[in-house]
């Protein structure tokens, strides 16, 4: 088994090479919250969350800032915009949306009875330099939208 790539080291080295004087400070917490399942998995409705953007980049507000957005799982989007987030653009591609937002794969698990259902919408959360925006503005919006969809749990798949 190969050792996992050390992305924090790579990112530090890359931004130092770009000439930035200080390293990015990743979020770190001693305490980790844990919500127990209130229902058996086979009765739960799952909501999906991605870091991709809509194809038309329509989730920008008047100031150009990216906001939380939502899309329907039926019909599933063929593609989403991913060029504005960091991923390995030399080694792979994101032409197959199911490789980062697993609508069909979860639908199959619903059909098998492993989970109760898939929420009617998926939600997109911008990747932000500002952890404060993610924690205070974006995350509460994602929660509100998941609850509005009747989701009991969420599967989050960052690119």
């Amino acid at each position, binding site marked *: 088994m190969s050792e*996992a790539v050390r992305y924090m080291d790579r990112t530090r080295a890359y931004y130092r090479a770009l000439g930035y004087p200080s390293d990015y400070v990743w979020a770190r917490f001693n305490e*980790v919250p844990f919500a127990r399942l209130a229902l058996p998995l086979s009765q739960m409705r799952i909501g999906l969350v991605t870091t991709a953007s809509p194809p038309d980049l329509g989730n920008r507000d008047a100031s150009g800032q990216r906001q939380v957005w939502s899309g329907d799982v039926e019909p599933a989007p063929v593609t989403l915009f991913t060029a504005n987030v960091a991923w*390995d653009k030399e080694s792979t591609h994101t032409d197959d949306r199911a490789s980062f937002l697993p609508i069909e794969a979860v639908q199959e*698990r619903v059909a098998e009875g492993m989970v109760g259902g898939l929420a009617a919408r998926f939600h997109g959360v911008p990747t932000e330099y500002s952890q404060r925006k993610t924690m205070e503005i974006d*995350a509460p919006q994602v929660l509100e939208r*998941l609850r509005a969809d009747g989701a009991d749990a969420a599967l989050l*798949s960052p690119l």
Partner: protein
Amino acid sequence: MSLVARHLETNGMPTVIVGSALDIVEYCGVPRFLFTDFPLGNPCGPPWRRDLQRSIAGQALDLLGRATAPRTTQRSGVAWPSDDDWRPRYGRVTPEEAERLKTLGEERRRRQAQSKTPG
């Protein structure tokens, strides 16, 4: 995304993250994490491989139902189906590229400074 998971859990909604940046997610600390050891960009499975994507979704949902404590990480057994050596590639800084990256950084800072200038 780890921060979003933490917020959902704090408010009673269970989550599972499926992702490929093991060090960053574990450094933050999340409840349930399925680690897929792939190049960044395809956390849910290699492109066009419905069979592997289906397997990974099943593993993620199983982890969601099975984990009993926070910081539960499971490594997916699915391997990247290629001989291509992708691991050294992302974000590499070679001596040959040092000058190009330095120039790129200077251009980026210049653009950022201009965009902050009023008028």
